[in-house]
C-alpha cells in the first residue's frame, strides 16, 4: 500500500506548488488601472457665452434636454417656476434653500457652482463641492441598498464601480425637499452617473434621474469639468447669513 502511493507524493507536491504560485501571481497582478480623476475640477462649458459663437468645442457637452414630468407633477413644477418668476418680477423673491444656507444636495451639487474635488482611495471615491463644503462618499464595489434601508438625506447613499474607463455611480435616498431645478421627486428617485475622461483634463458626467412616480421617462443630461491643477479647495462656512425667510416665505435681508 505504502509503495503504491509513494509515486503520488511528488505529483501532489507539484500540483500544490503550481496552485500556490498561481495564487501568488494572482495576488501580485495589479488590477486593471483605473483612470486618475483625483484632484480639483471646475465646471467646463457652462455660464455666459459657453455655447455662443466660435467653433464648437467637442469637450463641451450638448445642452440638457427638457425633463418630461407626468402631467400632475408637471403642473406642480410649472406652478412653482411661475411663482418664482412672479416673485422675482415683484422684487420679492421666494425663499429657497440658499436663504437658509442649506446645501444643494444631489444631483444639483454635481453642477459644481464652485470648484469640486475628487479623491480616490481604497474602497471609496469622495466628491467634495467647495460651496457649502458638500461631501459625497461613493462606496466602491458594494451592492446598493434597498430604498427602505436608506434614510433620506442631501447626498443620498452612493455605490460605484469602474466599467472599463467609466465610473458608474448609483445614488438613492434623497430628501423630498432637496430639489433639482425646483423639480418634485418621489422617494423612488434614483440617480445614475457615468463619469469618463473625454480628454486628459476634461471629465464628463452623464447624469440620469430616474423616478417612475414623477417622470414620464428618465432625464439624462451631461455636465463637464476641467482640471484645476494648481487649485486647493477653499473652506466654506456659513458664518453670518443675513438672509432669512419671513412669515410669507419671502427672502429678506437682516439690516444690521
Amino acid at each position, binding site marked *: 500500500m505504502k509503495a503504491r502511493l509513494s509515486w503520488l507524493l511528488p505529483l501532489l507536491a507539484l500540483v500544490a506548488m503550481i496552485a500556490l504560485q498561481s495564487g501568488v501571481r494572482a495576488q501580485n497582478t495589479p488590477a486593471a488601472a483605473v483612470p486618475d480623476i483625483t484632484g480639483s475640477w471646475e465646471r467646463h462649458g457652462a455660464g455666459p457665452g459657453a455655447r455662443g459663437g466660435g467653433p464648437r468645442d467637442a469637450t463641451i457637452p450638448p445642452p440638457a434636454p427638457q425633463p418630461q*414630468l407626468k402631467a400632475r407633477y408637471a403642473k406642480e413644477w410649472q406652478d412653482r417656476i411661475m411663482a418664482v418668476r412672479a416673485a422675482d418680477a415683484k422684487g420679492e423673491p421666494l425663499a429657497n434653500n440658499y436663504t437658509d*444656507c442649506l446645501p444643494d444636495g444631489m444631483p444639483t451639487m454635481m453642477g459644481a*457652482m464652485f470648484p469640486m474635488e475628487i479623491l480616490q482611495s481604497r474602497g471609496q471615491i469622495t466628491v467634495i463641492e467647495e460651496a457649502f463644503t458638500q461631501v459625497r462618499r461613493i462606496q466602491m464595489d458594494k451592492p446598493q441598498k434597498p430604498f427602505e434601508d436608506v434614510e433620506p438625506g442631501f447626498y443620498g447613499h452612493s455605490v460605484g464601480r469602474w466599467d472599463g474607463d467609466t465610473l458608474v455611480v448609483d445614488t438613492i435616498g434623497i430628501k423630498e425637499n432637496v430639489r433639482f431645478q425646483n423639480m418634485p421627486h418621489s422617494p423612488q428617485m434614483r440617480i445614475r452617473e457615468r463619469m469618463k475622461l473625454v480628454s486628459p483634463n476634461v471629465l464628463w458626467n452623464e447624469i440620469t434621474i430616474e423616478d417612475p412616480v414623477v417622470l414620464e421617462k428618465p432625464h439624462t443630461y451631461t455636465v463637464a469639468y476641467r482640471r484645476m491643477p494648481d487649485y486647493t479647495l477653499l473652506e466654506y462656512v456659513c458664518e453670518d447669513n443675513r438672509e432669512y425667510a419671513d412669515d410669507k416665505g419671502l427672502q429678506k435681508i437682516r439690516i444690521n
Partner: protein
Amino acid sequence: MIVASEVTMTPRRTFLTGGVLSLVMLMAASAAAHHSFAVFDHTRTLTIRGTVTKFQWTNPHGFLEVDVPQPDGTMKHYSIELTSINMMQRNGWRSNMIKAGDKVTAVVAPLLSGEPVGLGLEVTMADGTTKPLPVPNAGSFKRTPEAQ
C-alpha cells in the same frame, strides 16, 4: 448665495403637448438655482463715499460696512453686500485689502425696499485702486451717474 451663472430676465413660454406640460427653460445649464438678485434695483446704482467701520470676510457673503456723511451733517450707515468670499478670493480679493477707518467709494445696486443696503458692484479703495466684485451677470445692473 451668489453663484456664477446666467440670470436671464427673458420671459419664458409654456406649452402643452400630449398631456405632458413642458417648460421652455432658458436657464443656464449650471447652478440654475441660486440666491435671487431680485431684491436689488437693476435700474440704477448709488455711489457711496464713506468711512469703513468693518470689512467682514464671511460666507455666504462678505459685507462692507460704511458710515456715509450726509449733507445735513448727520451720518448714515450703509451695509454693502458682497459675493461669497470664495469667489472674491478667486478673483484676487484679500481680507486685508480694506480695514476699518479706510475711506472708500463703492458703486452699489440699492435694495428696492429703500433700506440702506446695496449689492457691491465695485469698490475704490483708500489707495485709489478700483476693484470689481465678481457679481454674476453684473451687466444686468444698469449703472447710473452719481447724483450731484
